[in-house]
Structures are given as C-alpha cells and as structure tokens.
C-alpha cells in the first residue's frame, strides 16, 4: 500500500533528532510537526521570519501579524524569536537549519530538484524553495513516486525547470525511501506491502536495489 499523507509525515518525523531546527515546506511537510516523537524537542523555522513556530491559534489568539510561510495564522512556541527576511535567509543560506523538508514535482539521479514551475501552467514563483535547497545540507524531499498516470517522478534528468542543482540526497515517496548518491537512486526502504518490483517499475532513473530492502516501520 502506498503511504498516506499522514504516513509520509510520520516516516519523515523518524528522521528528527532532539534539538533540531527544522524548516517544513507547505503541504505534507507541514504535517511532520504532528509526529514529533514524545520527549523530543524540535524548533520549527518559518522563512518569513519566525523561529519557534507553534500550533494554529484559537479564535481568541488569532493575530494577523503572526503568520507562517504558507500565510496561515500561527502562534509562537516558548523560546521563539522573530527576525526580518534577510536574517531568516541568512540562517537558511548559511546552513544553520538542521533539516529541511519540502515537496517536489521531480527529482533526478544527480540530486536535481524541480518543484516550482510548470511552464505554461504553473508560474507562481519559487518563494523560498531555491534558498532552502541551496542552503540546507540535510534535505528530505517528500512526493508521490509517480503521477496518477504512472509517470515516474524519479528521473534520470529532471524535465521541468530546476529549483536546485545537485542538492537533494534523500527522497521519501509514497512507495519508498531513497538515497541519492554517485548519480544513482539507492533504495533504502519500501512502504509496507509495496514490492521492490513495483518501485523499480515506477522509477525512471537508475535504481540500485540492495539484496534486502526493509519495510518502513511505523
């Protein structure tokens, strides 16, 4: 079975470490915050200028001056700090964020990522994604392994305009957890009940399959 959005978030959350500063992109990455392991503390960075993002506000707490990078109203966690956009991206570009999780349309065997633009269709802009993929050393891309029509999104070469070049090392799809190194995809884990063959069939770029590919544990 392909992973649900919640399971994707849960699996990413297993990569967290106590004391991590984490930037979570819009969509599935945002859900990761719901699965931080008990007894562990992470601090969420929101690139519009907030370190220590808290839950959504109650009606009573609602504050138009306090939003996240997805423009949603949020609250501040204990020990939060506020800064301007230049400082926020100094933090990101300077490699101070421990883990960045974001979505993508395509990734390829050279660690390229396309996530912001479909020519002629979707041209809203890259927002902070280009800075995030260029600045972070530790990035997890979360995405579906293939389109609804079975077209692979794990490619030899990205076909869409790139968000970043050679910067992605880990991809979690609804089918598999994959590492990118030496110009190849390396299959690390498979979703529960998903066969190695199924993953191989839906992976266009070269895929290295070890003898033993464990199922993800939840």
């Amino acid at each position, binding site marked *: 079975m392909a992973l649900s959005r919640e399971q994707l978030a849960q699996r990413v959350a297993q990569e967290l470490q106590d004391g991590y500063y984490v930037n979570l992109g819009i969509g599935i990455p945002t859900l990761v915050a719901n699965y931080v392991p008990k007894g562990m503390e992470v601090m969420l960075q929101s690139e519009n200028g907030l370190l220590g993002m808290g839950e959504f506000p109650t009606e009573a707490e*609602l504050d138009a001056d306090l939003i996240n990078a997805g423009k949603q109203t949020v609250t501040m966690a204990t020990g939060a700090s506020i800064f*301007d956009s230049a400082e926020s991206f100094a933090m990101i570009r300077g490699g101070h964020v421990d883990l960045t999780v974001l979505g993508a349309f395509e990734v390829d065997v050279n660690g390229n990522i396309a996530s912001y633009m479909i020519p002629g269709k979707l041209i809203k802009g890259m927002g902070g994604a280009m800075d995030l993929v260029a600045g972070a050393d530790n990035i997890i891309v979360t995405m579906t392994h293939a389109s609804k029509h079975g077209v692979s999104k794990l490619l030899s070469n990205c076909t869409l305009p790139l968000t970043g070049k050679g910067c992605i090392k880990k991809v979690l799809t609804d089918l598999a957890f994959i590492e990118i190194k030496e110009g190849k995809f390396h299959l690390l884990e498979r979703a529960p009940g998903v066969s190695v063959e199924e993953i191989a069939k839906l992976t266009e770029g070269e895929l290295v399959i070890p003898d033993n590919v464990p199922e993800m544990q939840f």
Partner: protein
Amino acid sequence: MAGFDKVVSSYEEAMAGLEDNMTVIAGGFGLCGIPENLIAEIKRKGTKGLTLVSNNCGVDDFGLGVLLPDRQIKKIIASYVGENAEFERQMMSGELEVELTPQGTLAEKMRAGGAGIPAFYTATGYGTPVAEGKEEREFDGRHYILEPAITGDFAIVKAWKADRYGNLVFRKTARNFNPMAATAGKITVVEVEEIVEPGELDPDQIHTPGIYVNRLIQGSFEKRIEQRTVREK
C-alpha cells in the same frame, strides 16, 4: 522638534514626488505587514509604469493587487505571485513583466542596496532559470551566481510603532521585508500604528534607526488575513 521630525500630515504628502516609471520597493509578506494605505494612495494618484519590488503582489482587491486593474505596474520583481486572477491574466498576456527572484535573494538584494554592496554571490538559484545571464563562479568547490543589489526611488514600509525621528519597531512576522525595504529607498516612507515621542523607544530595541526614514505617517489598518487557520480549543 526640528530637523529630525519625519511626521507628515497626509498620505498625499507621504507619497509626494512619486512619478510614472519609478521603482518602488514595498515591505510585507503576503498581506502581512503591508503598507496598506500607502499602496491605496498610489492607486489614488494613478501613477503608472511602476517597477515594483515586493515578495508578493497582494490579492485581487487588497494590497499591491489594487494597482493591477488600472495597469499601474509595468514590472514586478517578486518571489511568489499569482494569488489573484488579474495578475495571472496580465502576466500571461505579457502586459505585466514578472522577474521571479528567490525569496532570500530578494531580501538580500534589498539589504545590499541599502548597505552600499553592489553585488554578492549566492548558491541560491545556481543551475536554475534564475542563473540565466548571470555570472557563475566557484568558491571552495561550490557553485555560486552573482546577484546585483536593488534600490528604489521610493520604499514603502509598514511598522508597528515609531518615534517622530523615524526610529521603527515592528511587530511579530509583520516585520518580514520591511526593515530591508526601509534601507533601500531613495525616499523611504513609513506608515505606523502609533507614533510616540523620541526617547520613548528603548534604543537597544529599535529595529530600524531613523536615519533610513524620510517620511512617517500614522494610519489605521485593516490587516486582512490571507489564510485564516484556527484550531479547536
């Protein structure tokens, strides 16, 4: 109060001197911390052919989006746009020129503009459409591109509090691009929720020193929320 009193008495006075084809740098992220009334004044004035530098372009009927129907914007330099239909129409038809710039690069370009740094290298955008036409260079085995600074004829800024000397304090994430915008305008105009007397703000806690501010006006703000997201108590 002599030469350092930056307070003006009307929005007309605040935006005096803005002319067609000028470049305007605007603070704000989405609809958060935008200089609502200064934008409305630009609409009222009907200034045309503007190059706007702002992270976003508002929505159809609020924020910078209100400058679209009368085609007041010639070009926008932004990181994320298209939250409104008229914007997309003008962009697709080529009536509106859009220069997409990564958010952090945009913030740094404004800062550099205000700080007398004509250009800087960044890894952001290397190998992407953003790098087209830009110098590429390696430092310590990593690839970077050269990004030029941005300055504006005007900067329009929203702060929370100010003293009459133009010392500014921002509130929560409404800070965003506002401090950099404030440094990068030949004429920097700031609207605030409250103006206090010099000496009332703690010198250690001023976000933007008054030296960057030319004009200051107190306004009232709608503060529209773009994505109203609440949790059950």
